[in-house]
C-alpha cells in the first residue's frame, strides 16, 4: 500500500476488525446511563485464526522501547504482543504498549502537511503537499517569513534557529539535521527529565548507573514509583520479589503510591526533604561505622572530609526526623538494614524529573551513601553493565563562520546562565525560554524546528511557552499528533507513527546487553513519512538555497571557492570563472550538501551499522526477530511460562569496571571543590531554605506519572481513556471534608503561573498540606477529540523554578490554592 488507507477503507476493508461507533445517544440521562453511553467512537481489534504477518518492532508509547511483535491481518495491525527475546523488556507489554494500535489508528492523527492560515496558536491550517510545505519553510507565505529570508537578514547566523526535540529513537536523526544546519541552539527534554540525576551521578560515580533488582536484597525507593512509572526491566524485576520474597522494599514517597502498596515499608516523607533523610542515613552509617571499609579505602576520594562534614554538621536521625516528618527509629533501622545487606542493597537512583531545587545535592548524597555500602558495579547493586558496539552513521557538519555561538555565560570550566551553574548539551529549556522572552539573547533567534516535542504541555508555565512560540517567526513542527505545540506551528510536517517506520537501530546496555531494532510493521498511512524521509525531502529543498546565503555572507567561504590566477593550470582550458564554479561545486558536495545525511534509507543505514560490527547474520536476526546479541541462539532459553534466560549467569555483565566507579579517578568524588567557587556546596549540605513549608491555606503541588498514560503523548488514546478517563487532584480526605469538596467535584487550582480546572479525589493517600495530580492531561488543542480540555494541566500551574546547578525545571516547588467551582 503506497497511500495510507483512509479510515473508511480501513473500517470497511477488514473482517478482522470490530468497529465500534460508540456514539452518543441523543437522549436524556433518564433513558440510560449517561456516563456509559457518552463515549467517543473507538476501534477495537480482534484477532482471528487466519494467516497473519508477525513483525518484530519496538514500542514507542513511552521511553522504554520494549520489544513487541505486531500481528498484521489483511494489512491491519490487530494485536501487539510482547517479544520474549528482549532482555530489557522480558516478554511484557504494559497497558500503553498494548494500546499502540489506537495510536496508529487514531483518526485525529496529523495526516498531511499543513501550513498556517490563521492567527498563530488558533490551529487554523490548510493541508498542502509536501513540496508546498517545504517551499513554505524556505520561502514563507504571506503569514510568516521563510527560512531564506530570516537567514539572509541574520547574515547566515545559523543560530537564529532553535532546534527542540522530544525523546525518541529518531531524536539522533533530528540532531544530525541540527548539526548539519549549523545552529548552536539545541534544547531537548533533558532539563525536564534526567538532567540533574544523571549529571549528579555522573560527577560523583562517573556514570548514571542501572540497577540489578534481580539480585538485590534491600532496596530504598525514594521519590520513584516503579509500579506506576514503569521502567523496564526494573519494574518487572522488583515486584516479583517484594512482600517477603527476597527483597525488602522501602518506599519513601510523599504519596501512598502503588509502589507504596507493593512495598514492605512505606514512609510518607515531606516533599523536598529527601536530602535530609539521606544525610541522616549517612550519619548513622558513618557514626556506627557500618560502611564497607575496604571499598571506601580503595574507591573514595575525600572520604575523611565527607565523614567529618556529616558528623560535624549533626545530621542525626533526630535532626532529620524533624525535617522529614519521619520517625527517628525508622531512619536508624533503614540505615542499619541497608548496610547489613550491602553490597546487595540499592538506594534506587530513580529515573525522573527534578522535583526540588536541592536535587543535585540529593542525588550526590544518594550516590555516596550507596557507595558506602560498596554496592557499585556489582551483582545486586548499582551496575554499569555492558554494551554492544554499533557502527557509525556519519553526518555532515559544515563550517559556518557566520554562525554565532551558544548564548551562555562563558567561564573557565562551565557554560552557565544566571540561574544555573552549568548548561549541559541538552540545554536548560525554561531558562532558555525565559532569557529569550526577556530579550537577553546576544543575537536574534527567529525560527524553531520542533520534533516530537510538546513544550506547551510539558514545560512549567504554559503561558510563557505560548509567548515564546508566538514570538518565533517561523515554527516548524514535526509530529504525529496535533498537539498543543503543533497548534503554534507555521508549518506542520506529519511523521508516521512508530508502527509505520523503521527507526535507527539501538544498542541497549545493561547486565544483559542487546541490540534492538524497530522494524516497520505497515506502510505509512495517509500522507505521512518517517523523519529520515521528511528531512531528506526538506534538505533537498533547502540545501542549495541555504548554501547560497552562506556564500553571500561568509567571506571565508567566498575566499575558499574563489579561484586565483595561480591555481589556473597553464594547460587548462578553464576560465577563472569556470574554475571558481568547479571549486564551489566541489565545496558544496563535500561539505555543504545537507541531503547526504539522509540520502540512505533507515534500513540501509541500520544494515551498515550492524553489519560493520556484528556481521550479516545480525542484520538478518534484527529483521526477523527484532533483537540481536552474540550467542543469542545458544544463550536464550524459555525456562517456563514466565521465566527466560538471556545470558547464562557467568556471562552477565554485573561487573564491568572491577567494582570501581567510572569517574576519571576511578573513585567516588565526595568533594567537588571546583563547584565551591560558583556557590555550589562541594559536599551535600542541608540548608534552611530547603525546609518544607507551605503558607496556610495553600498546598504544595506534586505531579507525577502512572501506568496508563505517558505524559501528553498518549493523551488522546481511546483505549487508555477506557482505563482512566481523566486526571483527578488528590487532596487529603479530611481537608477536603473541611472545605466541602467531595469526590468528582470540580476545583480550580491556581498559582502565580496560572490556573486549571480539575476534578477532586479526596484520599488518605496524601498529606494534608499537599496535593497531586497526574501530568499529561488538559490539552488545549481542539483537534484532539479525547484530550481536548480533558482534566487539569499541571504545567499551566507549575511555576518556572530552576534547579541552580544544571538548570533543570524543579517541578515540586509550587504552592497552589484550591477553590471549589
Amino acid at each position, binding site marked *: 500500500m503506497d497511500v495510507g488507507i483512509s479510515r473508511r477503507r480501513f473500517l470497511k476493508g477488514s473482517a478482522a476488525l470490530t468497529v465500534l461507533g460508540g456514539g452518543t445517544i441523543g437522549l436524556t440521562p*433518564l*433513558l440510560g446511563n449517561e456516563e456509559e453511553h457518552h463515549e467517543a467512537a473507538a476501534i477495537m481489534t480482534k484477532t482471528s485464526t487466519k494467516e497473519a504477518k508477525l513483525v518484530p518492532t519496538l514500542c514507542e508509547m513511552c521511553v522504554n522501547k520494549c520489544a513487541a511483535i505486531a500481528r498484521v491481518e489483511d494489512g491491519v495491525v490487530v494485536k501487539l504482543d510482547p517479544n520474549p527475546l528482549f532482555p530489557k523488556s522480558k516478554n511484557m507489554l504494559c497497558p500503553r504498549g498494548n494500546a499502540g494500535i489506537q495510536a496508529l489508528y487514531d483518526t485525529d492523527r496529523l495526516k498531511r502537511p499543513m501550513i498556517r492560515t490563521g492567527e498563530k496558536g488558533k490551529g487554523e491550517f490548510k493541508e498542502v503537499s509536501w513540496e508546498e510545505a517545504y517551499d513554505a519553510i524556505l520561502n514563507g507565505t504571506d503569514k510568516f517569513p521563510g527560512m531564506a529570508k530570516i537567514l539572509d537578514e541574520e547574515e547566515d547566523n545559523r543560530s537564529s534557529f532553535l532546534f527542540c526535540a522530544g525523546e525518541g529513537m529518531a531524536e539522533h536523526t533530528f540532531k544530525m539535521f541540527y548539526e548539519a544546519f549549523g545552529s548552536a541552539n539545541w534544547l531537548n527534554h533533558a532539563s525536564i527529565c534526567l538532567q540533574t540525576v544523571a549529571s549528579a551521578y555522573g560527577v560523583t560515580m562517573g556514570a548514571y548507573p542501572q540497577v540489578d533488582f534481580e539480585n538485590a536484597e534491600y532496596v530504598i525507593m525514594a521519590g520513584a514509583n516503579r509500579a506506576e512509572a514503569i521502567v523496564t526491566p526494573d519494574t518487572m524485576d522488583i515486584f516479583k520479589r517484594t512482600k517477603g520474597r527476597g527483597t525488602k522494599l522501602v518506599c519513601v514517597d510523599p504519596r501512598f503510591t502503588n509502589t507504596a502498596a507493593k512495598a514492605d515499608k512505606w514512609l510518607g516523607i515531606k516533599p523536598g526533604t529527601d536530602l535530609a533523610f539521606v544525610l541522616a542515613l549517612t550519619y548513622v552509617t558513618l557514626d556506627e561505622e557500618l560502611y564497607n571499609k575496604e571499598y571506601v579505602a580503595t574507591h573514595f576520594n575525600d572520604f575523611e572530609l565527607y565523614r567529618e562534614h556529616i558528623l560535624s554538621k549533626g545530621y542525626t536521625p533526630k535532626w532529620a526526623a524533624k525535617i522529614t516528618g519521619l520517625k527517628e527509629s525508622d531512619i536508624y533501622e533503614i540505615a542499619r538494614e541497608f548496610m547489613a545487606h550491602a553490597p546487595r542493597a540499592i538506594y534506587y537512583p530513580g529515573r525522573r524529573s527534578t522535583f526540588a531545587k536541592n536535587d543535585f545535592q540529593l542525588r550526590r548524597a544518594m550516590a555516596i551513601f550507596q557507595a558506602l555500602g560498596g554496592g557499585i558495579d556489582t551483582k545486586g547493586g548499582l551496575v554499569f553493565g555492558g554494551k554492544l558496539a554499533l557502527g557509525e552513521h556519519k553526518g555532515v557538519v559544515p563550517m559556518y563562520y557566520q554562525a554565532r555561538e551558544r548564548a551562555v555565560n562563558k567561564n573557565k570550566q562551565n557554560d552557565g546562565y544566571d540561574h544555573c551553574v552549568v548548561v549541559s548539551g541538552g540545554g536548560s529549556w525554561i531558562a532558555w525560554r525565559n532569557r529569550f522572552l526577556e530579550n537577553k539573547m546576544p543575537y536574534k533567534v527567529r525560527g524553531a524546528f520542533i520534533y516530537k516535542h510538546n513544550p506547551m504541555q510539558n514545560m512549567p508555565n504554559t503561558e510563557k511557552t505560548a509567548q515564546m512560540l508566538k514570538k518565533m517567526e517561523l515554527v516548524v513542527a514535526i509530529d504525529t499528533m496535533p498537539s498543543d505545540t503543533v497548534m503554534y506551528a507555521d508549518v506542520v510536517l506529519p511523521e508516521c507513527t512508530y508502527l509505520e517506520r523503521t527507526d535507527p537501530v539501538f544498542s541497549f546496555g545493561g547486565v544483559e546487553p542487546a541490540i534492538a531494532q524497530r522494524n516497520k510493521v505497515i506502510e505509512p498511512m495517509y500522507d505521512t513519512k518517517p523523519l529520515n524521509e521528511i528531512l531528506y525531502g526538506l534538505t533537498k529543498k533547502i540545501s542549495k538555497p541555504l548554501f547560497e546565503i552562506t556564500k553571500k555572507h561568509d567571506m571565508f567561504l567566498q575566499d575558499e571557492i574563489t579561484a586565483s590566477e595561480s591555481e589556473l593550470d597553464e594547460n587548462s582550458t578553464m576560465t577563472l570563472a569556470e574554475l571558481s564554479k568547479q571549486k564551489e561545486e566541489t565545496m558544496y558536495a563535500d561539505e555543504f550538501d545537507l541531503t547526504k545525511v539522509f540520502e540512505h534509507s533507515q534500513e540501509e543505514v541500520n544494515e551498515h551499522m550492524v553489519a560493520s560490527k556484528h556481521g550479516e547474520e545480525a542484520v538478518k536476526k534484527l529483521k526477523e526477530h527484532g533483537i540481536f546479541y552474540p550467542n543469542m541462539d545458544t544463550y536464550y532459553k524459555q525456562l517456563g511460562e514466565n521465566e527466560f534466560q538471556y545470558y547464562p549467569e557467568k556471562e552477565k555483565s554485573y561487573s564491568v569496571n572491577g567494582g570501581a566507579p567510572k569517574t576519571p579517578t576511578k573513585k567516588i568524588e565526595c568533594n567537588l571543590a571546583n563547584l565551591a567557587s560558583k556557590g555550589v556546596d562541594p559536599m551535600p549540605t542541608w540548608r534552611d531554605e530547603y525546609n518544607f513549608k507551605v503558607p496556610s491555606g495553600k498546598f504544595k503541588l506534586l505531579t507525577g506519572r502512572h501506568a496508563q498514560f505517558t505524559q501528553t503523548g498518549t493523551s488522546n488514546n481511546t483505549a487508555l481513556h477506557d482505563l482512566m*478517563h481523566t486526571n483527578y487532584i488528590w487532596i487529603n480526605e479530611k481537608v477536603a471534608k473541611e472545605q466541602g469538596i467531595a*469526590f468528582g467535584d470540580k476545583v480550580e487550582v491556581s498559582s502565580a503561573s496560572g490556573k486549571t480546572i480539575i476534578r477532586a479525589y479526596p484520599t488518605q493517600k496524601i498529606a494534608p498540606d499537599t496535593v497531586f495530580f497526574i501530568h499529561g492531561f488538559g490539552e488545549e488543542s481542539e483537534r484532539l477529540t479525547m484530550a481536548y480540555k480533558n482534566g487539569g494541566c499541571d504545567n499551566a500551574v507549575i511555576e518556572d523554578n530552576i534547579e541552580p546547578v544544571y538548570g533543570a525545571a524543579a517541578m515540586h516547588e509550587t504552592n497552589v490554592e484550591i477553590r471549589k467551582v
Partner: protein
Amino acid sequence: METVAKKSSAIKEFIRSIPINKIGVKDLLNFEKSPLNLFLAALTLVFLGLFVVGVLIYLLHGHHAYNVTREHPWGLLIAVYIFFVVSSTGLCIVGSLGDVFGFKDYMAISKRAIFGSIVTIVAGFAVIAFEIGHPVTMMIYNVLTPGLTSAIWWMGTLYGLYLTFMVIEFVFLLKNDMKSAKIFGLVGLLVGLAAHSNLGGVFGFLNARTISNGVFYPTYFILTAFITGVFIAYIMMGFRYKLSFSKEIQTMLNGLAKIQALLISILIFFVTWKFLTDVYGGMPNRAEVAVHILGSWTFWAEVILAMLIPLVIILASKASAYRAIFFASLSGMVGIFFMRYNLVHDTQLKPLQEMKIREYQLTPEWVHYFPSATEIMISLGGLGLCLTLYYVGTKLFSLDSDHH
C-alpha cells in the same frame, strides 16, 4: 380422514359455543361518562401511548435505553413482570376458591378473577418481552435445549402452561361447564403455584446473593400472591359494583377481608422474622444489606401501603368497611408494586465485585439504580394493556357469576 374432519368440526363447534358478546367499537365507547371513568379511560390511553413510545425507543437503542447495568442487570421491567405474574397467580388462587375448592361464597368472583389472571399474565408477558433480549430465541431454545437446572426455565415454561390452563378453565367457566372448569382450574392452579414458587426460586437459588438466597422467597411468593389476589378482587368488585355491594357480595368481601387480615398478619410475621434473622444473624453480605433495606423509603412504602394500612382498616372495621377496604386495597397494590421492586432491587444491592477497578472511582458500596424513562413508559404501558384487556373483557364476556 373422516375422523379428522369430524374432530375439527367438533372443535369448531366447541369454539362457536363459547358465549361471547358480539361487540363493535361503539360498544367499547359505550360506558358511563362519569369524570372518574373518563379519567381512567384517558389514563389508559396515555399508558398505551407510552407503551408504544417506550417500545420504539427500546427497539432503536436496545438495553441502552434502560438504566440496567452490569452490576444491576435486572431493572424495573423485571419487577413489573413479577408484579403482574404475582397478580395473576393471586387472582388464580382467589378464583379457585369458588370453582376449584367449592367455597360457594367466593363463586361470585371466580370468572372475573380467572379472567383477571389471564389479563395480568398477558400484560406481564408483554412487559418481559421487552426485557428479555431475544424472546424468539427463548421460545426456540427453551424447547430445543431446555436448561432443567434453571429456575427461569421452569418458571417460564410453567407459566406458559399455566396460561393455557387458565384460558381453558375460563372457557369452561364461560360455558358454565363447572366440572371441566374445576379440573382445569385445579391443574392450572397447581401449575401456577409451581411456576410462581419457581419465580421465587429464581431468587432463592442465588447462592451469591445471601439476602435472597434460600427458601424464603419461593414460599413468600405464594403468600404474597394470595394477598395480591385478594387486593385485586376487592378492586375489581369495587369497580364492578361502584362501591355499593349487594348482600351476597358483602358476604364474599367480608370473608375475603378476613382472609386478607390473616394473610397480612402471616406476612408481617414472615417479614419480621426474615429481618430478625437477617440483621441479628449477622451473616456477612446479608446483615448489612438488610440494615440498608430497612433504611430505604421504598421498603417502608411496601410495609405501610401493602401491610399496615390494609391490616389496620380491616381489623378496625371487623372486615366490614368495604369501601374503606377497597381503598386500602388500592393502597395495597401500590405497596405490592414496591414489594416487587424492592425484591428485585434489594437482591442486587450488594455489588459482587467490591473492589475499585479504576483509581478514580468511589469504592463500590451499594449498587444504585433508578429506572429510565423508557423503562417507566413500558411499565405503565403494561398497566395500560392490562386495563384495556380487562375492559374489553368486561364487554366481551359475562364475568359475573351465573350461580345465584
